[in-house]
């Protein structure tokens, strides 16, 4: 009797472990359009209304807990915010002048820049967050039925949040900026030097703007924005000028200058986001078709790096 129980217990454990490993291997090895991914999308379609309902029902509880934390932080942030408002007011005046000049130049050179206005923003609610230590993905309640496609940029009122990694009919998985497979071509403030923003190695909450030319100017406090397409053969997924983060420190030890960037969007507290959708033939749609022929270590070709990052599929 005892032997039978022991044998059954061991058999169940072995079966579950083997099943997990089989799922892991098959899922990791298959393409995003594979059968297990399809099952996952179908499952999301079934449970997303439940998750959406639970999310709305539990919002008061969440808000209550958040209220305590926010109240503690509010006082310390007030003085900082006042100082920042002063600085931003001065910058706004300069930026308005710059914008006017920019539009004049744009009209003169007939540049076909795809700005945020050219995208069709779709508002979505975050219904699930990755509960593990990496915090690198969220699930939103809008999917293909709302025009959301893979590689569409995702923003919130603070700045760039990430991009759509997988889209189901009624939901989509968004990879956050801190996901290891993300890469965004970016520049610092008014500088023309572009680099590639990637998650900081070993620190899942911070970013690193790498591959900057050694003579690029960077000062702590400056804002980092998306650079948009720099070279036509490497179109960017992201429109230019989206706020990514703020420079915290500069590292000049390596051959290329790199800058530590703290994301402006609070990736731990996402509630409502906007997906910048674009129709067929857009950059996001076209990039989905690109063959993954780019090799790592292409140097400072930043948009190539962004493509490489966007075509790599790290599971989860």
């Amino acid at each position, binding site marked *: 009797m005892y032997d039978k129980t022991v044998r059954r217990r061991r058999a169940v454990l072995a079966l579950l472990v083997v099943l*997990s490993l089989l799922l892991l291997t098959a899922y990791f090895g298959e393409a995003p359009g594979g059968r297990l991914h399809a099952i996952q999308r179908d499952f999301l379609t079934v449970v997303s209304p439940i998750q959406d309902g639970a999310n709305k029902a*539990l919002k008061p509880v969440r808000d209550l807990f958040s209220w305590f934390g926010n109240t503690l932080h509010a006082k310390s942030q007030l003085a900082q915010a006042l100082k920042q408002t002063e600085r931003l007011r001065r910058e706004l005046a300069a930026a308005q002048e710059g914008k006017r000049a920019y539009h004049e130049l744009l009209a003169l050179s007939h540049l076909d820049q795809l700005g945020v206005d050219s995208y069709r923003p779709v508002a979505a609610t975050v219904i699930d967050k990755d509960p593990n230590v990496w915090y690198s993905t969220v699930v939103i309640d809008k999917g293909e039925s709302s025009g959301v496609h893979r590689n569409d940029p995702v923003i919130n009122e603070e700045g760039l949040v990430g991009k759509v990694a997988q889209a189901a009919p009624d939901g989509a998985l968004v990879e956050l900026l801190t996901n290891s497979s993300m890469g965004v071509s970016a520049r610092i403030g008014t500088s023309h030097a572009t680099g590639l923003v990637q998650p900081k190695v070993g620190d899942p909450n911070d970013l690193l703007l790498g591959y900057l030319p050694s003579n690029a100017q960077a000062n702590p406090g400056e804002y980092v924005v998306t650079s948009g397409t720099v070279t036509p053969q490497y179109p960017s997924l992201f429109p230019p000028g989206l706020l990514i983060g703020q420079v915290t420190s500069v590292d000049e030890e390596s051959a290329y200058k790199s800058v530590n960037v703290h994301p402006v969007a609070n990736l731990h507290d996402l509630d409502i986001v906007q997906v910048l959708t674009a129709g067929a033939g857009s950059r996001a749609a076209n990039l989905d078709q690109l063959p993954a022929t780019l090799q790592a270590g292409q140097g400072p070709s930043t948009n190539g790096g962004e493509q490489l990052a966007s075509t790599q599929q790290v599971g989860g």
Partner: protein
Amino acid sequence: MSGSSAGPLALRLGALALVVVFFQIGVVSEVPVFGVNAELCALMVAFSGLLCGSMVGAVCGFAVGLFIDLALLQTLGLTSLIFTLVGYWCGRLRELRDPQGALTPLLVGVSASALSLIGYSLMEFMLGVDSPVSFQLLRVIVLGVVVNAIFALPMWALTRRALEAAMPEDPRRRRRRRAYTTGGLSPLTKA
């Protein structure tokens, strides 16, 4: 476990798992404490194992992990593998040692959290996340364990309350309880 008690226990366990998973992804994942989030699902799986044994713990861990992987579009099999091992280990602890101390749930919760966080990190490294072990990552793991320790005792009370009514009577515990209430010896032995 007898067949008659398996049905109600499975029902209660399933309902508890659903509630905890939705609460985890709907509330707890969005409310960081000390910059990290508690992992109630890992605690629930660990306490299911501690209450019901290794087989129930392993099956519960696999099911909860698979549900999380499916609902969050994560790598299938990753969370279920880790939670299966966590549930099984906690169940074996009960079967081999049957710890009765008041702090047992706290220690088991801390150990299960550490096992799950370290296991998850290791699996992520093995699956190609380009991040070496750093102070920041260790800090997140240590803080995660501390936060889970805060939630361990309430989670234990909830799991026990939800499952106890459907659990079969354990002869070892019945003997221990009788010995405790009669001062260590039964009246018949004294006579």
